[in-house]
């Protein structure tokens, strides 16, 4: 019985995930695209929970669907009123090539997974409750992956400085353009 419920929740979350992902790409209004990306991130958080990645799910909702998407919506509102060019220009064979290339990418990944790793993917390791808990993740971050943790902080610092530099009012260039 529990298994059936988990399947139903998983299928609903995966369907919402793929549907909102397609909506992000196809909707012409960037505001609605950003809103469907929020739905996509929320349904991904459900999938993370079902894969026993509780801390990643919480961080996904807090950091991604919360902070990052608010920044996106803020910029879209700031740029509001601009007509959005829906599809890439150029001849239509370029568009067909884009669709073909991403279809081939999907087929390649799926075939590689099923042919090369299909047998090994079914025997899952037994897990304990500690997998994905904040304590376990923090332990790994501060012991095995300390270097990655520190480099992440430097990356964020550099990005923040870059954002400030990009946002500075460039008086010379604006005077020349105006």
């Amino acid at each position, binding site marked *: 019985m529990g*298994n059936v419920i988990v399947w139903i929740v998983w299928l609903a979350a995966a369907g919402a995930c*793929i549907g909102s992902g397609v909506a992000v790409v196809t909707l012409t209004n*960037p505001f609605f695209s950003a809103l469907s990306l929020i739905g996509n991130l929320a349904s991904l958080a459900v999938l993370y929970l079902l894969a026993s*990645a509780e801390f*990643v799910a919480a961080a996904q909702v807090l950091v*991604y669907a919360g902070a990052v998407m608010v920044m996106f919506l803020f910029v879209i509102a700031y740029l509001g009123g601009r007509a*959005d060019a829906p599809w890439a220009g150029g001849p239509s064979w370029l568009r067909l090539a884009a669709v073909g290339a991403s279809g081939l990418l999907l087929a390649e990944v799926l075939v590689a997974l099923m042919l090369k790793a299909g047998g090994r993917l*079914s025997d899952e390791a037994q897990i304990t409750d500690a997998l994905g808990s904040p304590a376990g993740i923090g332990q790994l971050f501060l012991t095995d992956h300390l270097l990655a943790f520190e480099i992440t902080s430097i990356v964020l610092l550099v990005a923040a400085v*870059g954002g400030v530099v990009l946002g500075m009012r460039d008086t010379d260039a604006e005077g020349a*353009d105006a």
Partner: protein
Amino acid sequence: MLGPGVPWYLAVAAILFATGALGVMLRRSPLIVLLSLELMLNGSNLALVGFSRLFGEADGQVFALAVMAVAAAEVCVGLGLIVAMARRRLPLDVDRFAELRG
């Protein structure tokens, strides 16, 4: 493990990644290109979490969190670029930016 096995997670991850790649190639607005990039990053995150479940080790989840931080940095710089473009009254169309000249 209750519910679907790891191959199902990987299939959803592959579909998300391909959808994001399609958006990056197909759309003109740099805002939607950034949104599609987020889709690709999330597809890879879902694969990382799925493999972390397969092996019963949390290292994949740690890497997914690092990817999240990198995505936040990328959005910070990317949105800064888009706002700088809009302030200079440049067209928001990636097809029109074909040369690296200020």
